[in-house]
């Protein structure tokens, strides 16, 4: 497996009037060619901030970034955190591309689709206008837009939401990047369109042997396309593992909470099992485990450490690790029983 991206001990914080917001607090993860790695978490868990850091899209002077983001620029590794503005700009859209949550507002309303696509190519290949246009049509065709030559002359408002997301994907692929970051790519779309876009992403990943970093809060999406999953809570990864590990034998109480809160059609008379409480403020995180105030399994922790120390990311298996003070074998038993009860 070829490694494309390695994030190590990434910290991102923002200075605000209320204090320092530690949006990302020591995140490490890797992405290989041909696989989809998901970052799952609720709003404010730091998943989008992590992905924007990879693109170097945080505003200068606003975000404080430390750690390393080692990114393969077609074979040569570059540390995004320590690159100059121009060097990052050169990587963006060429070595790593990004598609965003809202395709309705992510395209410039005043420029023709074809020109917006061509621009992505021209930025990295100056003066090659003809090639850029040809490439744009090729990519539009590839992502399943009928009559690309005609549609390239149209404006974004003439496209439906799903079609616009296809256009965004085509734009991301203009320079054949190895890494694609998809930030909630289907959240704003209809469910049927959602499935089409996910299928398209999977197809393109295989075709180009890309690595896809998928940011989402939707466990259904994760189950469909992800190979490996990182669950984030309060700026940290609380559990990482293969997609089956996460869904069938979760080890972090938060992951279990997420799985339990997915509504199920079969159990129609049951209340939704929401996780009680609210995520903590990222300005003043509690000293102990950030999830402790909402955790139902604190009493199983041996030394009542939940409120005093932060759990480390550990696991008996090197590929499936989680943060929790409750002994892992005990969690295995407890969580498996709970899952069985919920999922039937």
């Amino acid at each position, binding site marked *: 497996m070829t490694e494309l991206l390695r994030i190590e001990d990434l910290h991102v914080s923002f200075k605000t009037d209320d204090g320092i917001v530690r949006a990302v607090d020591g995140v490490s993860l890797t992405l290989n060619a041909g696989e989809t790695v998901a970052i799952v978490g609720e709003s404010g868990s730091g998943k989008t901030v992590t992905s924007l850091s990879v*693109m170097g*899209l945080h505003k200068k002077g606003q975000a404080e970034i430390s750690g390393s983001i080692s990114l393969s620029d077609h074979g040569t590794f570059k540390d995004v955190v320590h690159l100059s*503005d121009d060097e990052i*700009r*050169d*990587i*963006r*859209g*060429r070595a790593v*591309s*990004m598609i*965003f949550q*809202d395709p309705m*507002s*992510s*395209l*410039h*309303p*005043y*420029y023709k689709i074809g020109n917006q696509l061509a*621009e*992505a190519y021209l*930025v*990295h290949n100056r003066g090659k206008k003809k090639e850029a246009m040809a490439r744009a049509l090729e990519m539009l065709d590839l992502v399943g837009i009928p009559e690309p030559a005609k549609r390239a002359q149209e*404006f974004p*408002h003439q496209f439906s939401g799903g079609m616009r997301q296809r256009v*965004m994907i085509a*734009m991301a692929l*203009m320079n054949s990047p190895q890494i694609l970051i998809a930030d909630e790519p289907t959240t704003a779309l209809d469910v049927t369109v959602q499935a089409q876009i996910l299928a398209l992403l999977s197809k393109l990943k295989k075709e180009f042997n890309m690595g896809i970093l998928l940011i989402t809060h939707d466990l259904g999406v994760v189950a469909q396309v992800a190979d490996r999953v990182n669950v984030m809570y309060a700026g940290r990864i609380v559990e990482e593992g293969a997609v089956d590990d996460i869904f069938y034998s979760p080890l972090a109480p938060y992951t279990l909470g997420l799985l339990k809160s997915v509504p199920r059609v079969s159990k129609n008379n049951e209340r939704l099992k929401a996780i009680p409480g609210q995520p903590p403020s990222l300005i003043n995180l509690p000293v102990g485990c950030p999830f402790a105030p909402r955790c139902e399994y604190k009493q199983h922790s041996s030394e009542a450490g939940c409120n005093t120390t932060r759990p480390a990311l550990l696991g008996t298996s090197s590929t499936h690790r989680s943060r929790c003070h409750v002994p892992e074998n005990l969690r295995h038993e407890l969580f498996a029983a709970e899952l069985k009860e919920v999922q039937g």
Partner: protein
Amino acid sequence: MLKFIGRRAAFAAMTILIVSAVVFMIFSFLPFDPAALTCGQRCTDQIVEANRVRLGFDKPIYEQYWLFLSGIFAGRTYGAGSAAFTCPAPSFGYSFNENACVTDMIREALPITISLAIGALIMWLIVGIGLGIIAAKFKNRWPDTSSSVFVLLATSLPTFVTGLALLIWVSIKWKLVPLSLTGYTSLIDNPYKFMQYFILPWITLAIAYAAIYTRFTRAALLETLGEDYIRTARAKGVGERIVFFKHTLRAVLAPLITLAGLDFAGLIGGAIITETIFNLPGLGRLTLRSVYEFDLSVVLATTILAAVVVIVMNLIVDMLYAVLDPRVRIV
């Protein structure tokens, strides 16, 4: 496009008709005898009655309005026999105070007001948009702060203060620009004199408007910079300069043009204060004088003219908007 223009032109004609009818009616309800206003101090009842007949004030109001309207297209002859005089089409009436056809008075005043408005418009667009761009680009740094000082000063100073200050210092004390006593020279006849004549009035008007445009441009740019499509442009690897001057500025253009078109239309109606300070015989001064002297036919004409300009500028702005914003479709 042609269909659109046709429809809008018909709509505009209707609006103008209604505006003129309303204005006409208001003036006829004023507690003045329009015939009595037509003669000076040595007035006799005979002269008043003769003028009443000559100007058609003896006829019922709807007939007067009809005569007014037909005069616009066919010209109008007042009185009969040797005392008759004619205002050729388009005739907007006759001013007894000035003993002239209203159309001729407007024809003299209009170029001055248009020159004043266009010059000021160009000036405030350059200064306002320029400062707005600088302020947005250097947000919260000293260029931004200084521009907000300018905005604050310029918006709080009324034009009669800036105008008089310019007149006193630039013209009278420092003698940089001669006082415009010689009168209006057209741009084609003598560009240098034309500039000298208008430079201070332009600056006076431009200062007031530039402040508004600075603030508007800055706010619009900063708002656009936060748009998702700007992030998309950055994600493509587009450089900051192109992100700003192409992607962002382009989105701000359409609303700016709307604003400029309407402000320009407002100025054609008459920059009364500025024209008065600098003694420019433009439409604003004409209107002001006519109001003072109850020269109702002139007030009527200038009011209708102002309405026409606003309507026409609205039409132009809408068409430009459709060109600038592909989402706006003309049907």
